[in-house]
């Protein structure tokens, strides 16, 4: 593990939000020698981070419609396999064409993958069936890409563990009740320790809002607006591994078009809609039924599989209030310096993005934070191998 840069003596950053983005940001800043405190009101990764289907994106899903995200995904996919080896089922993925309409999408898909430098190998139905015998035998073609399965909680825990080892303070069960604001400057946050019931104040030169789909609510505490649309999706966990590789439907994003094998489960995802408040998410039964129906098109054995769980998770998508289903919104990310955007100093929001791009989001945000602090240290997270997740629990 790399030793962190010498402490920047006066620079102190408060990160609000203990999901993957906050984890990677705490790690990045700690490596640059910045004093970091991260607060999370619940358990770490209890918001969106822990709840996703566990896909390490190759970027192929976005190769046609969202090339910016596609490039981000393949770059980060490659980096994460290096710095967090052992946190992924590295079995690759297939994009499977089932209909003539899917086949019409194929040329654009292959071109998109090439343009974004995503390795893509066209397979015949026979080749695909030899790799995945449970696939719908009437498939027309398949494309192999470097998708993988991640442990949605333990991979981010490795960022937390490494950040802590480099001096970051990670405080869970610590809720932000308000921001400290004087004369248009945010100087930290008022917090409530859920374990002791005590109130406290945490002073910081820069406070970062890394709360994913909650980032609009936290930004409002600073009197600013961030254009976030919490966009939930339903997922269905089935008992048993129905495939070894990640199976995607080769078409424009739609409901129930991915099956992620994970542990002893197969996860079918997902749907997409838009809500105002990500706190309480419905699990609409018609969406769950849709997962069964669409999943069965990719793997007929889905029909006979045993139910394990159905749940919803809210994506933090960047978009205006006009957004309808969330499908039309980009999966890219943004770091917003509210001094530039809203004339509120000391406050930065990092949002959008995906679990796959957590490190890249952190680098972008840490660059913004360090510029504000006058810290001149480069990002070192691309080459720093992370500690095992168990190090997070070490005393």
């Amino acid at each position, binding site marked *: 593990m790399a030793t962190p840069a010498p402490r920047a003596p006066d620079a102190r950053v408060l990160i609000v939000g203990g999901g993957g983005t906050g984890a990677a940001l705490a790690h990045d800043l700690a490596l640059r020698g910045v004093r970091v405190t991260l607060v999370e009101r619940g358990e770490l990764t209890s918001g969106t981070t822990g*709840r996703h289907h566990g896909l390490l994106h190759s970027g192929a899903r976005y190769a046609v419609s969202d090339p910016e995200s596609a490039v981000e995904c393949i770059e980060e996919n490659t980096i994460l396999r290096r710095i967090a080896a052992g946190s992924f089922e590295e079995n*690759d993925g297939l994009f499977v064409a089932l209909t003539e309409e899917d086949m019409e999408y194929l040329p654009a898909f292959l071109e998109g993958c090439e343009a974004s430098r995503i390795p893509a190998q066209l397979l015949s139905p026979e080749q695909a069936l030899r790799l995945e015998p449970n696939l719908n035998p009437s498939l027309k073609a398949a494309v192999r890409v470097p998708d993988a399965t991640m442990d949605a909680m333990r991979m981010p825990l490795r960022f937390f563990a490494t950040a802590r080892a480099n001096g970051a303070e990670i405080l869970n069960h610590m809720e932000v009740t308000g921001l400290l604001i004087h004369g248009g400057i945010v100087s930290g946050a008022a917090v409530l320790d859920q*374990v002791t019931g005590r109130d406290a104040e945490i002073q910081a030169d820069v406070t970062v809002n890394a709360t994913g789909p909650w980032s609009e609510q936290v930004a409002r505490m600073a009197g600013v607006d961030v254009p976030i649309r919490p966009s939930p999706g339903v*997922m269905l966990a089935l008992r048993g*591994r129905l495939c070894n590789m990640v199976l995607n439907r080769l078409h424009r994003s739609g409901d129930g078009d991915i099956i992620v094998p994970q542990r002893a489960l197969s996860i079918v995802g997902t749907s997409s809609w838009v809500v105002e408040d990500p706190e*309480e998410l419905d699990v609409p039964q*018609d969406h769950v039924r849709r997962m069964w129906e669409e999943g069965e098109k990719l793997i007929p054995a889905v029909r006979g599989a045993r139910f*394990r769980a159905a749940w919803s998770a809210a994506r933090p998508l960047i978009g205006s209030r006009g957004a309808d289903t969330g499908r039309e919104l980009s999966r890219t990310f943004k770091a917003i310096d509210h001094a530039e955007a809203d004339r509120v100093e000391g406050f930065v929001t990092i949002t959008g993005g995906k679990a796959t791009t957590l490190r890249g989001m952190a680098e972008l945000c840490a660059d913004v934070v360090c510029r504000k602090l006058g810290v001149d240290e480069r990002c070192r997270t691309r080459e720093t191998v992370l500690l095992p997740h168990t190090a997070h629990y070490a005393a």
Partner: protein
Amino acid sequence: MDTATLPEPATTTRTLRVSRFSRDGRPPRFEEFEVPVTEGTTVLEALRWIRVHRDAALGLRHSCFHASCGTCGMRVNGREVLACVTDVASLGQGPVTIEPIANLPLLQDLVVDMASFYARFPLPPPLVRTSELVSASELPEGIDAHERFEDCIECGLCLSACPVVATDETYVGPAALAYAQRLLEEDRGADRAAILSWADDDNAAWRCHAAFECTEACPSDVRPAERIMALRRELVLHRETVR
């Protein structure tokens, strides 16, 4: 896709008796909450409802919502379960009693300190192992073996259910022993002699009373008790070989 186009199932009210604890010197006590539930509402969703609508300070761990992360282990009506895959409707009639898992230090309400869970392991447990193949799968070019995450989700339910751990915390317990057996079962470059020597101890493989409560409690089909028995067999064979 339209949301919630179907009529919502009927809502009933259930009483949850939730164990509350803060480190103020007082022992844990129960607090009752009336919670609306519908068909399929899980214990985790019911507890989240309490956090959102009744008491934001209710201490609770959760992450994945599908029995893959292991954070929401607790005792519900006296049995070790994952709250995220336990339907309230499956718990019969009457109040539902919810307590933290046992045999680990209690931090707050339903939150235990997992540090002493991991401290029992001989070395950090790896996450990934070779996957059993889906029948007749061919390996894609460039991949040595299909791999998958371990069944053990490190939830601590086996430790909570173990009657031996309950009386003696120096016993390393089922999760760590099952893990040691997995390392021997599949050659992953681990130091076999070191693992066998770690397991060959009065506080390790020989301490189990074969109550099989761990296997009963395991939500992830690890079958720790059977693995402890297999580990003993391995230890006996190893001794004979050494002689």
